């Protein structure tokens, strides 16, 4: 109980309040969350309360239902409940599928209050006995609409729903006006939440695309169980029930199919009529066209550019060649002229010499001498150069007979000596050629010389890389280049020629080469014991040379051996005997030896190939 105010007391503030303090609270509970939300949104508690009140009032507004009277209600036949409009019966004709469960319940309550037989009886109305009263219709309506499954079934066949699909002709005219309501109407059947709108003429491509993909994948909940002709509950036995079920299922499936077709037709029609799609298609086409054009243009330009460059290059080359030709021509002319002049001069000089000699009677006393002298002079004329002829003529012209004679004789002697020399040189050259020919015995058309060391290396390489090696001759050539000391670069062709030559040589010659190599090796490594590993390849060659039988393994034998090696693994007892038995004409020892060789070869080959590979990588 509050106290009475004493006289003179007025509303007054007489003190200040203590400031707020900060406490740590536990972050749990819905009130904490509410507090947090309030704080984040920076609103006061009272504001939130106001909001909540608003929400409440909204809810209460919902409850204020406006029920539409259904004038036919009293004339309804309860037996024909299947054909009645349940929404209309409950006075919800204006809400239909939008009515909430709450509203339906409220409406039902209102209807019951108004139309219950007891109530009407009290008001003095005549009541039809039993289930034939129209009140049964109301009961039926709430029964259908309060059950979500049944309500859905009824909604699916809502008699007020317009199933019509606009024709193409209609749609072409004013697309948006025609189709927007149709799609909005049909979108109630979807089970998805966010339904894309048809949009306007200015909708973007994404929006339109989204819209059509939604409708093409339309997932409808519409079902037609309400239209079932037979009622399962009416069946008398299980078989009949099954039969009815089957019938119903078939008709439902049929109707569902029709429905899907209807939607499909609708979307197809819309799609074909949609001016936006047309626009997008055209745009796309134009874009592609322009892209194509641009591409073509670019290609053409490139081609032109290329051709121009080529032409310019060709022109430049031609000009250069022409110029060169011209120059060469000039030079040739010049040379020819000079040659002619020289020729003339030499002719003149020769004539001079001859006349001089003749004048001097060839410095001879007797006829025979003079003839001989004449021969000599002719020889001089042939052999001597312009300059020496000139000088000789000068001497002859200025000097006395004795002097001239001496000079001529001296020249003759010189010429003779020269001739002799030339002859000797020629003989020697011929000899040398012959000997060299013999040595290389027609080696590939003037190939570079092969010395002992290189030959040895070649033999080694050939043995290392037997026939069948990948790019064998390149590998051998590379090997040679790597290991040779001469510094001469060999290519595969050189190597192949030389090797063929070597093959032609008789074993004796090979032997010689090897022996030489061995001697040289011995000389070089005098201190090193002869059993070094390096000597192995040559030894092997030796052996193959000496024992012709064991050395040359034919490819067939080789194959047999390889096969045998595979079939008898290392673990096989008496392996080598078995291998030898498989390879005809070979002993166990031969096989073992060959195997060892092969192992060596493979090892070396691998090493060399790696080197080549490394090199090629570089």
């Amino acid at each position, binding site marked *: *109980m*509050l*106290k*009475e*105010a*004493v006289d003179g*007391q*007025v*509303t*007054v*503030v*007489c*003190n*200040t*309040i*203590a*400031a*707020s*303090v*900060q*406490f*740590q*609270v*536990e*972050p*749990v*509970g*819905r*009130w*904490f*969350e*509410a*507090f*947090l939300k309030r*704080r984040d949104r920076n609103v*006061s*508690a*009272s504001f939130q*309360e106001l909001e909540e009140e608003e929400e409440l009032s909204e809810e209460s507004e919902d409850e204020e239902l406006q029920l539409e009277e259904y004038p036919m209600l009293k004339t309804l036949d309860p037996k024909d409940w299947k054909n009645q409009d349940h929404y209309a019966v409950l006075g919800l004709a204006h809400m239909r599928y939008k009515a909430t469960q709450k509203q339906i319940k409220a409406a039902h309550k209102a209807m019951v209050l108004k139309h219950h037989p007891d109530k009407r009886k009290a008001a003095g109305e005549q009541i039809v006995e039993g289930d034939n009263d129209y009140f049964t219709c109301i009961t039926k309506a709430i029964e259908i609409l309060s059950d979500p499954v049944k309500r859905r079934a009824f909604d699916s066949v809502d008699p007020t729903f317009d199933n019509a699909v606009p024709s193409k002709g209609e749609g072409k005219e004013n697309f948006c006006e025609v189709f927007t309501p149709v799609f909005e109407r049909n979108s109630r059947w979807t089970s998805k939440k966010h339904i894309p709108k048809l949009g306007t003429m200015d909708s973007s491509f994404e929006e339109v695309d989204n819209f059509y993909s939604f409708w093409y994948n339309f997932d409808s909940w519409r079902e037609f169980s309400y239209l079932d002709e037979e009622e399962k509950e009416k069946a008398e036995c299980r078989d009949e029930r099954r039969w009815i079920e089957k019938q119903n299922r078939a008709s439902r499936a049929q109707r569902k199919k029709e429905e899907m077709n209807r939607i499909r037709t609708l979307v197809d029609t819309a799609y074909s009529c949609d001016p936006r799609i047309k626009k997008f298609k055209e745009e796309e086409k134009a874009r592609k066209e322009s892209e194509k054009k641009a591409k073509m243009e670019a290609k053409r330009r490139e081609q032109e550019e290329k051709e121009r460059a080529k032409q310019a290059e060709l022109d430049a080359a031609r000009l250069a060649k022409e110029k060169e030709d011209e120059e060469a021509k000039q030079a040739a002319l010049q040379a020819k002229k000079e040659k002619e002049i020289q020729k003339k001069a030499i002719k003149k000089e020769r004539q001079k010499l001859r006349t001089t000699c003749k004048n001097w009677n060839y410095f001879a006393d007797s006829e025979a001498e003079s003839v001989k002298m004449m021969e000599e002079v002719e020889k001089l004329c042939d052999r001597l150069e312009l300059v020496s002829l000139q000088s000789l003529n000068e001497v002859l012209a200025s000097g006395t007979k004795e002097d001239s004679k001496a000079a001529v004789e001296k020249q003759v002697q010189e010429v003779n000596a020269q001739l002799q020399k030339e002859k000797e040189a020629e003989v020697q050259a011929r000899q040398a050629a012959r000997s060299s020919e013999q040595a290389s015995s027609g080696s590939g058309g003037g190939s570079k010389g092969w010395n002992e060391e290189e030959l040895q290396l070649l033999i080694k390489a050939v043995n290392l890389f037997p026939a069948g090696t990948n790019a064998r001759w390149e590998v051998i050539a590379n090997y040679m280049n790597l290991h040779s000391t001469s510094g001469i670069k060999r290519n595969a062709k050189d190597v192949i020629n030389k090797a063929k030559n070597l093959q032609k040589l008789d074993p004796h010659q090979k032997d010689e080469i090897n022996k030489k190599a061995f001697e040289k090796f011995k000389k070089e490594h005098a201190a090193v014991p002869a059993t070094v590993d390096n000597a192995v390849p040559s030894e092997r060659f030796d052996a193959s040379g000496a024992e012709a039988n064991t050395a040359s393994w034919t490819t067939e034998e080789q194959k047999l051996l390889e096969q045998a090696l595979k079939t008898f693994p290392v673990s096989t007892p008496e392996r080598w005997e078995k291998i030898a038995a498989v390879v005809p004409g070979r002993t166990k020892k031969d096989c073992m030896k060959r195997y060892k060789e092969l192992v060596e070869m493979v090892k070396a080959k691998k090493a060399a190939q790696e080197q080549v590979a490394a090199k090629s990588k570089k």
Partner: protein
Amino acid sequence: MAAIGVHFGYTCACVAIFKDGRADVVANDAGDRVTPVVVAYRDKEQIVGIAAKQGRIRNAANTVVKVKQILGRSFDDPEAQKHITESKCTVINKDNKPKYEIDTGEVTKIVSPDEVAKLVFHKMKETAQSALGSDITDAVITVPFEFGEIQKNALRQAAEGAGFSVLRLIHEPSAALLAYGIGQDTPTGKSHVLVYKLGGTSLTVTIMEVNSGMYRVLATHTDHSTGGESFTHALAQYLASEFKRSFKHDVTGNPRAMMKLMNSADVAKHTLSTLGSSNCFVDSLYDGMDFDCSVSRARFELLCASLFNKSIQPIKTLLEQVGLSTSDVSKVVLCGGSARIPKLQQMIQDLFPDVELLSSITPDEVIPVGAAIEAGILLGRDCSSLDVDSITVDCCARDILVKEADDTGADMYTVLFPSGTPLPARRQHTLQGPGSLSSICLELYQSQGHNSTPQEKLAQIVLNNLEPKEDNHDIVTVVTMKRDGSLHVTCTEQGSGKSEAVTVAVAS
């Protein structure tokens, strides 16, 4: 949508699912609603739960227990050191972080406590998933109030490593309160709640203030030496002495026999919570000799009498500490498995004679259920991004009271606005004045200090010229306090609509 709450305790872990508006604990694959936090390492596999606990007798060196004691602690932490000395598992020091050394056949594995915790969380996730039948990640994890930031982070990371998306870490006492929905129905009012948690190894007593549906920890006390295990240990010691009496053999020195006895005592202790007596039977306890002994509840209570007293003691000291009497506490929440012990419940009831003991939810499931409820609350939120696990809010410092006269005419004060109310807040009261009066005066006071006897007058509101009537004048008083603490009071007489308002400023 569903969310789960996980309680990761020292000895047991438990998971509850919030689904369809209610939270419930789910049983694990063994059919137990709580899973022992025991991880056993074998050659190729890790076993979590009851199987690991049962296999502990043979595989003690490779079985990790009570990993929470060491989780997120440095090696030289005293708590960690205590754990290390007690653990049967080798613990090594690596960068000042404790790690378990697990010997699995040939190789020695180094396992961090985080990994062990991760395994346990993984097990809890599996349990929830199998119960729910679908993948679930959103979870609220509970932590003891005394956990530090590092330990909380370690726990959070272990949970995230097991595939949880941790919605929030909440304190165990608040989860217990939430499980009973204390203060959740109406956002007004203020009360004090005592949370008594007696777990496997620790005893925690917390006094919380519930105000406007929000919880605040006033004081807490944790005792790591008292727990369910100490009772089991006492019982096992008794059993050992019985064995010695009948067979003349001392098994206290034999660790394996003691472990068997402990297991048996554990079972007996559980039975004694519901039955009057229990039979302990251990096959070939020592040297092929079987042990059979019957323990009555009275015997057990006698054995543990001192321990019970020790468990109750912290309540009194804590109440003294915050200056509350037992009558100020409106509710007592029991949680932790050992809070089931009837004697203990009775002792607490004796301490709070006119207070209801909340134990309708099984004590060891209270905390996970609360966590699951919190998870359900958070699940509805779009963004529940809260970086800190506790948050400071502005609260009203003092009680705001109004002076009234009781039936005899003596002064009495009614609290209009309790201290500790989170601000801003608004409270509405309907005060009544005698209908015969034509003017009514409301005098507003604020309390001084904690107890509300010495008052300080803040303001007075006078409503004049009221029409006298037969029944009482209803004065609707709306008290609003802003975040800074300034007070606004509006009084309206319902009959005539006359109103007065005052604003009290904050002392600078």
